């Protein structure tokens, strides 16, 4: 394999070890290296690398940089809440913290370019300098001129510098409408199942044979491959469940060759893991604890199991009223909440376009007045419109059980939406013995 890896200008043994350390990414490695050319040659001004999560984008790029000891600045764009931080990190990586300290308080792009030029003129690049921007999709939220400028930074600063952008989304979503320099696009495909097995088998446990670990990985992928191809997650799961897999071996109940027996032991366990620890219903710590405790019967309560919320009495009714207001057409309020609603024939009453379930369409916004009107008619006692009733509405909003919609003009009838599910509201109304289904238009 290492035969293909011949790049002039780099030491050969480093290249070989590089190829060994990056399994299943040989083609990407070679094309990247050929793209970079020899260290002192000018490289393409900007490269855009995209691919799904955990396909080895940043790993490959950073390993190349580190192993070949190339001057580089690696920046995660999530961290850069302002452009200034990005400039700061780049400058301090290339020219030391003293250079970065020269940046003014709120540096602009031109400040950065000026400083960079100034610095590079005193210490010109002997090798290509690389700026690696991880999670580049965040750049779109920054200053609109930043991305086009970085794409042709080489021209701007007149230095041997290449910008490598790493992202999970395609370049089409980046392109600004004013047009810009087109970077070189480079795709990292997903790992195939065989490749995943190969990579995961790498970190086998020292006290067991690699073959056993490989067969374990095969079993694991048999369960998880259909739901998850994220290498990082799979690795996490492999580590978590390996001790359980080895249990029969430890106890002496099975030998390493009894793959079928081991499979029978681990398979239900892995399925349970898929429903709990993979979804983070149960933390990995608790999962390990449970494995150690050996108690199959004690099932840990996941996060979504604690769905019950205790609310004050009127808050419950406010929430019910909000739910009714969100899922019933306003036209039908007369029928549900008026004692003498007159004769509304059912055939007329049910309009055709409203026959599609309101629950499928999701909650609709409603004004405060309507909420209170429904509230006063559902609550069984007379309630004074006190300040605490109103403050309960706003505390429901902060608890995100209601959400406020639209403009922030508070004086002029604010609008809300109900943000809870039918199951939740059924549970709530059961505690106050209110039959909410009778009041819902969809269930008429």
């Amino acid at each position, binding site marked *: 394999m290492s035969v293909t890896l011949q790049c002039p200008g780099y030491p050969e043994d480093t290249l070989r070890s590089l190829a060994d350390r990056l399994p299943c990414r040989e083609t990407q490695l070679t094309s990247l290296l050929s793209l970079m050319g020899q260290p002192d040659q000018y490289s393409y001004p900007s490269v855009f690398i995209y691919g799904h999560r955990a396909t080895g984008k940043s790993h490959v790029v950073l390993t190349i940089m580190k192993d070949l000891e190339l001057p580089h600045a690696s920046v995660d764009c999530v961290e850069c809440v302002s452009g200034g931080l990005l400039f700061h990190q780049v400058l301090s990586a290339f020219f030391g913290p003293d250079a970065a300290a020269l940046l003014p308080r709120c540096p602009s792009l031109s400040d950065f370019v000026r400083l960079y030029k100034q610095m590079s003129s005193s210490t010109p690049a002997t090798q290509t300098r690389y700026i690696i921007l991880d999670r580049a999709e965040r750049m779109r939220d920054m200053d609109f001129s930043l991305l086009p400028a970085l794409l042709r930074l080489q021209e701007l600063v007149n230095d041997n510098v290449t910008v490598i952008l790493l992202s999970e989304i395609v370049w089409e979503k980046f392109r600004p409408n004013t047009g810009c320099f087109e970077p070189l696009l480079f795709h990292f495909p997903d790992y195939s199942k065989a490749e995943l097995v190969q990579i995961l088998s790498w970190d086998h446990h020292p006290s067991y044979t690699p073959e056993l670990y490989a067969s374990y990985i095969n079993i694991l992928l048999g369960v998880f491959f259909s739901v998850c191809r994220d290498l990082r997650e799979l690795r996490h799961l492999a580590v978590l469940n390996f001790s359980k897999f080895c249990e029969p071996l430890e106890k002496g109940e099975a030998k390493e060759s009894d793959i079928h027996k081991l499979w029978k032991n681990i398979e239900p366990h892995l399925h349970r893991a898929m429903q709990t620890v993979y979804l983070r219903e149960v933390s990995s710590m608790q999962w390990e604890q449970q494995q150690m405790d050996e108690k199959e019967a004690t099932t840990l309560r996941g996060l979504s199991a604690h769905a019950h919320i*205790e609310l004050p009495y009127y808050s419950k009714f406010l929430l019910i009223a909000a739910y009714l207001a969100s899922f019933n057409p306003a036209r039908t309020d007369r029928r549900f909440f008026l004692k003498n609603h007159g004769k509304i024939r059912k055939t007329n009453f049910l309009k055709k376009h409203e026959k599609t379930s309101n629950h499928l369409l999701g909650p609709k916004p409603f004004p405060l007045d309507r909420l209170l009107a429904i509230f006063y008619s559902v609550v069984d006692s007379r309630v004074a419109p006190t300040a605490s009733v109103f403050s309960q509405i706003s505390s429901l909003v902060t608890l995100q059980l209601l959400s406020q919609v639209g403009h922030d003009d508070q004086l002029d009838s604010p609008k809300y939406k109900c943000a809870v599910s039918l199951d939740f509201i059924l549970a709530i109304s059961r505690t106050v013995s209110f039959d909410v289904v009778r009041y819902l238009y969809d269930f008429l």
Partner: protein
Amino acid sequence: MSETPVTSSVSKGCFVFKSTSKKRKRHVGVGGYLVDGSDDNGSDRFRICQKLWETVQMNTEVIQDQLNKHVLDSLVEFIKKHDLGNSPDVWRQRSSEIPTAALMLGVNVPDHAMTFRSLCNLLQDSVTPFVVSVHAKECAAVKLLIHKLLEQLMGKGVSVDEEQEDETALLQRTQCTISALCQWYKTVTKKCPQVSPQRKANLKNNDLPRSLPVVVIFKDFEAFNSQVLQDFILICSRYTQELPFIFIFGIATSPSAIQHRLPHSVSSLLCIEVFQSLSCTQHLASVFDKLILNSQFPFKLSSRVIQVLVGIFLYHDFSVQNFVKGLQFSMLEHFNGQPLSVLCCQKKEALLFAKTLSQKNVERIRHLPSFMRYVETQEPQEQVQLLTSDEHVKDTCQKLLKNLHKYHKNYYPILQCLHSLTSLLPKFPLGKHIRELHVSCIEKNLWETEEYDSAMQLLRILAKDELVAALEKCAEILKSAKTKRMQNVLQQVEDFIGRLEALEGVTSEESTGDGVILEKNRRTDLFQLQKTLLEKESRRTKRVNPYEVLRSQVIEFIDSLVREYLTPAELQPLSEVCYYSSSAVLRQRLNVSPRTSIQTALSHPFHYLQNESLKTNAGTISSAAPDLCIVYKLHLECGRLINLYDWLEAFVTVMSAAEDQDADSEEKGKFDSLKHARFIQAVSELEFLGFVKSTKQKTDHVARLTWGGC
């Protein structure tokens, strides 16, 4: 009227008048707040009130600490565990997960502050000095959140070591990033062991040099912007190797809020464990036990007041903090409004005050309804004495105070006993919580209610083991009661328990006897058997089981206790001294309705201004009322859209109604610019109050924002 300062403003509103220095001096002294001029013990009352409030505060804090102890301890345990988990483990690389505790606190957000404060203190004392707590309000963006984090942590660093000050200042000036924090953390942890000897001792105890975690507490998780949280978690997860972060999410609703807020890619970076704190109803129950169902606490609430406070709690906010605030308010009201509340303190002190009652207060005592009732029950001669001799009243007063204290000392144990008995019964005829039982006891004669009858009926069919268990519980309660009478009761209860247990042998013997009879008759024919069985049945119905006899005795005994000790508090002479009973005031103050008061102010200006000329009959609009009120009343008669010109004309008509009699008919209906201006001002004030708004639907119209009209 002549005293009130006059403003040059046309509109009505709140104006600040600086009072003259003479007036201010009168209110300087702390104890002077309750001084009325008419009585002399205002400062005493203030002192008593202050002292009581301190006990309340202390007790609530103790209760909170006790209740939170379990969950806080397990949190600390969790943090320590993860702390140790950081020890180098070559094979597995789980460390990229940030340990996270989801702390379920319930929806009573006002109470959370206290919990977080004690959590912070506990963590800082026992685990790590690096504790940061952030509020959603301060962190609208990631930048602000990181800034807050750095500010709190590095500020602490400065306080730990003076030398570092310039260093941190430099860092803060240049960068506000987590990597800067990393640098700082490295320098601080190098020095830290030398800095605090206490921590060093801790380290020695554990024999494991471990890194101090950085704990970040998100006080109100729900209120955080989810994008901010996601970014923050992503950034932090990049640094977990160097900076051992631990997050604590304060969650008010349910843990599934985390899943709603964070996508899988982010939540997979967290290692979440749930911690459930005690529910607020339990918290309230323990506060209630400590402060209200306690004979040591002299200040009492009447049944109505309790209902108002508990109602606010259950219906509106679930906040124990607010409940205690309500208690404080009623205390202040009581000590402020009731001059005799000087007697509402511990027994010794109260007796001392009773000896030195002023003449005015003696007169006040004579006018207390409960005292008057007491006088009526006395002999005629005694009555005369009580009405004429001040000294005699003072003596009687001391006696009555002693009785009142005795009443309370006996009341609470018996109440608890009754509750422990009735809480066994199905459907809880006397209430599930002891507070409900307490309310019905102090309100009226409990034994006259239907619920009490049904409870007693149910008690009469209680099985033996249940009854014994309940009685044993009662004995346990009574043991803590100190009075002689309660000791007597305790003896009787124990006697009953003994007799019930002695019954065991007897009943079992009898049943075996029955068995023998059955054995004998086995060989007889069917008819014979039927006959014997019927005979036995009739015998059984006639003959009462010894257990049943004893049980009815026990029930009788309990009934007598209830009738003797659980009498309503109002009937006790001098109960007004201790009991605060104006629930209407409390409701008005604590459960305010701003809308109603604005409407009252606008429609009945007399209610607030207390100006005689503003008194009007319902339905009429007086021209003497403020402009705003006139405009408001006129607008009530309109529909959804109001024509401004019509409104103005109506306004001018009302304004000139008074002048009409002597004015020319020519001028009628005309209006000058002054009236016009006043009208415009009143309308804009009404708009400011949110009753109308301008609309584009029709020119020269405004829209009504309130209900009503057509």
